[in-house]
C-alpha cells in the first residue's frame, strides 16, 4: 500500500523533473546539460512514477512504446545529419539558422539522443519491473 502523501508529492515532483529535463536538453549547447543528461532525469522521473503508481500506469501515460521512442530517436539523429548532405558538406556537419533563432541541426541531433536514451533505458526499466511483478 503506497502512502497518499508520497503519491501526491511524487506527481508534483515528476512534473518539475520533466520540465527540468527539457530545460537541460535545450540549454545543453552552452551550459552544462544536454540530451543524455536530460533523458536520464526524465527516466528517473518515470522511475519515481513507477514507484508511486505502477508500471502499467506509466505505460499508459507515455502512450508510445518506449522501444519505438528509442528507435525514432536514432532516426531523428540520423535525419539531422542528412541536412548537411544537401548542402554538399560531410554527413552530420552542423547547419545553423542564426538569423531568427539560435537553432541548428545539432539541437535536432541532441533531441534524437534524448529520445534514444530515454526510450532505451525506460524500456529496460519497465520490462524489469513488469517481469518481477
Amino acid at each position, binding site marked *: 500500500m503506497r502512502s497518499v502523501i508520497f503519491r501526491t508529492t511524487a506527481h508534483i515532483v515528476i512534473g518539475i523533473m520533466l520540465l527540468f529535463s527539457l530545460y537541460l536538453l535545450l540549454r545543453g*549547447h552552452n551550459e*552544462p*546539460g544536454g540530451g543524455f543528461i536530460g533523458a536520464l532525469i526524465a527516466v528517473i522521473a518515470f522511475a519515481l512514477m513507477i514507484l508511486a503508481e505502477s508500471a502499467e500506469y506509466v505505460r499508459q501515460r507515455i502512450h508510445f512504446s518506449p522501444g519505438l521512442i528509442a528507435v525514432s530517436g*536514432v532516426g531523428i539523429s540520423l535525419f539531422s545529419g542528412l541536412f548537411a548532405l544537401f548542402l554538399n558538406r560531410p554527413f552530420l556537419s552542423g547547419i545553423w539558422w542564426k538569423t531568427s533563432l539560435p537553432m541548428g541541426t545539432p539541437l535536432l541531433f541532441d533531441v534524437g539522443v534524448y529520445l534514444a536514451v530515454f526510450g532505451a533505458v525506460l524500456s529496460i526499466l519497465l520490462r*524489469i*519491473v513488469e517481469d518481477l511483478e
Partner: protein
Amino acid sequence: MVISVFVHLLLLLSLSSLYDPHGVRWQWQWVPSLGVSFSIQLDGLSMLFSWLICGIGFLVQLYAYHYMKGKPSSALFHIYLTLFMMAMLGLVLAGNILILFIFWELTTITSYLLIGFNHDQQISRKNALQAILVTGAGGLALLAGLIMLGGMAGSYELDHIIKNIHLIKTSNLFLPTLILILAGAFTKSAQIPFHFWLPGAMSAPAPVSAYLHSATMVKAGVYLLARLSPVFCHSDLWFWSLVLVGGTTAVWTGLLALKQTDLKLMLAYSTNVALGKLMFLLAFGSRFAIAAAMMFIIAHALYKAAFFMVIGTVDKAAGTRDYRHLAGLGGILKMSFIAAGLSALSKAGIPPLPGFLSKEYMYKAALGVSYLPTAILVLINAVMAGLAFIIVIKPFLVKPDENSVPLKSVEKYTFLWLPPLCLGFLGLFTTLFGLDWLNATLIGPASIAVNPGLETEPLKLWQGINLPLILGGVSLLLGLVVYRYHDAISGFIDQITRRLPSGNDCFEKVMQMISRLASWQTGIFQHGRLSDYMLLLFSILGVHLLWYAAALPVPRTMDFHGVSLHEVILAVFLLAAVITLLLSASRLMGIFSLGTAGFITTLFLMFYNAPDVAKTQLLVETLTVIFLVMVVRRLPGFADTATHSAVRRAVNAGVSLSIGVGVFWTLTSITSGTMDTKLTDYFAANSVIAAHGRNIVNVILVDFRAMDTLGEISVVVMAALGASTLLKKRKRRNG
C-alpha cells in the same frame, strides 16, 4: 517480361555501338580516399562475353516466358534473371578489380536465388545453399587475392596492374596471391575438387541451367583467369595448376557424365568437362590455344544453352529426363530435334559447326607442346562426342518400346523451341558466313587481351588435310565407340566410382565438422553463467592494463602538495564505503555502499570542474540504485549474499587488485608527464566559432564527434531491444 527482354537487346546494342577492338575505358570517382574508382573497360574479351551474356540472356528470357508460363512467380523469375544478367555484365565490364569482385559476389547471390527458385522443394534449397557456400568461400579467397594483387601493383585498376607486371613478379606475395585467385576461379568454374556444386545446381529450372551453366556464371572463373593471364602466365605454378586441375576435371567429370541416366545431369557434368578443357587451354597460352579457347567459349555457350533448353522441353513433354525411358521424341518435338541435332554436331566437332573449329585449333595448340596433352584432348573430345550422340540419338531417334513414357506435344508454345533453334543456326551461320567478322571483332582482340604479346591469326574453317583434322576424325570415331558400348562403359565407371567418396559426401562431412566445431566452441564460451562472463571480461582487462602499465615510465614522485582537507575527507569516506561493500553480508547494504562510493566519485568530479561528467555520473548512479533496488527487493534470499568458494574469492580479489593497480599506475604515470593538449585546445578554440556553443562537452558530443554519438545511441537502443527480448523470453518460459 517484355521489359527484361528489351533490357538485354538494348544493352547489347549500346555496348556494340561503343565497342572498339582496341579497348575503351570509362572512369568515375567512387571512393577517392581509398583509390577505388568505378571504371568500365570494354575490350575484345569483355565484348565477347557481353555478346554471350546479352544474346543468350535474350533467348533464355524468351524461352523462360513459355517455360514458366502459368507459374505464379514467373514475373519474379524474369526479374532474378535480369538481375543476374546485370551482375554478370558488370563482372565482365569491370575495369577495377574491386568492382569486379563486387559483381562477382552479386552473381553468386543472384545465382543462389535462381538455383533455389523452386524453394518449396528441400533438395532445391539444399543445392542452392551448397552452391552459394562453395562459390562464396571461393569469393572470400578471391577477395584476399585481389587485395594483395592491388597492393603489389599499387592500384586496383586493371590496366595499371597489367602495366606493372614487373612489380608483381618480384614481390614475395606473388605466390599466395596466385593461389588465392586460383581458388576463387576454381570454385566458381566448378573445377575438381569443387566440381560437385554444378551438377547439384541442376535442381534449378531449365532456363537457369541454360543461362548460368552454359554461358555465364561458370564461365566467370574462366573469364577471371583469362583477364589476369597476362599477370600470371609466366609462372610455373600457374601452368601446372591449370593443366593438372583442368585436365583432371575434364577427364574425371567426363567419366562421371557417362554414368548418368538423367540427361540434364549428363549435360551438367559435360559442362564441368568443358570448363576443365578451357582451363587446360588457358594454361598453354599460345596463340592457337587462346584462339581455340575463345572459339570454344562461344561454341560451348551456343550448343550447351540450346541443349539445356531442349532438355527442358523434353522434360515438359515427357515428364522425365531419364534417357532409359525416353524414345521417339523426334517425331513429336521436331523443331527441338533440329536444334538438338545441330548442337550435338557442334559438340561432337563435326564441320562446319563452331565446335569443329575450336577442336581443330585445340589440337594445333596441343601438338605444338607435346603428345601427352594431345592424347588427353583426344580422350576428352571422344567423351564429349560420345555424350553428344547419347543425348540426341537415344531419346530422339530410337523407336518407343514398353519402357518409354507417353509424350505430350508441347511445341505449340513457340518459345519452347525457337530459342534453341536460333542458337543452333546461329552457330552454323557464324562459322559459314561470319567468320571474318568474328575474327576481326571478337576473337582477335580477345586473344590480345588474354596475352598482349600475341600475334593473332584469323581462324580458318578449312585448312587442308593435316594432323589436327585426322585427330578430330579419330576422336569422332572414338566417340562413336563410346556411344556403341555406352552401357558397358557406364556400368564399369559405376563400379569404380561407387567405392570412392563423392565430392558431395566430402562437402557434407566438412559442413558437419564446421557445425560441430561451432557448437563445441559455443558451449565453451557461452555457458550462461554471468559471474564467469564477468570474471573473464575483467581478467582480460586486468592483464591488458598491467601489460601496458608495465611499459609506461615510472611516475617520478607522488606530489601531495595542494591537497585540501575536504579531498582527504572525501577519500576516507570513499574508502570506508568500499570496505563496507566488501565486508557486507547483505545485498541491500552492498547496494547502498556501492551507491555511496558512486556519489562520492561524483563529488570529486565536481571539485575538478567537470560539471557535465559529474551530472551524468550522478544520474547514472541514481538510476543504478533504482534498478538494483527494483530487482533486489524481489529476489529470494534477500538478506544474504550467496558466497563463492574461497578459491574463487581469491581469484576475484586478484583480478580486482590487478585492475586497480593497473589503473593507478597508468594514471599517475600519464599525469606526471606533460599532457598533449592539442585536441583540447582545438575544441576550446573552435567550440564557439565553428559550432556556436560554449559547452565544449556537449559540442563535442553533438557536433565535433556526432558520428561517435550516433553510433553510441544506436548501441544503447540495440542493448535495450536485446534486454527486452531476453526478459520477454524469460517471462514466457516461466509462465
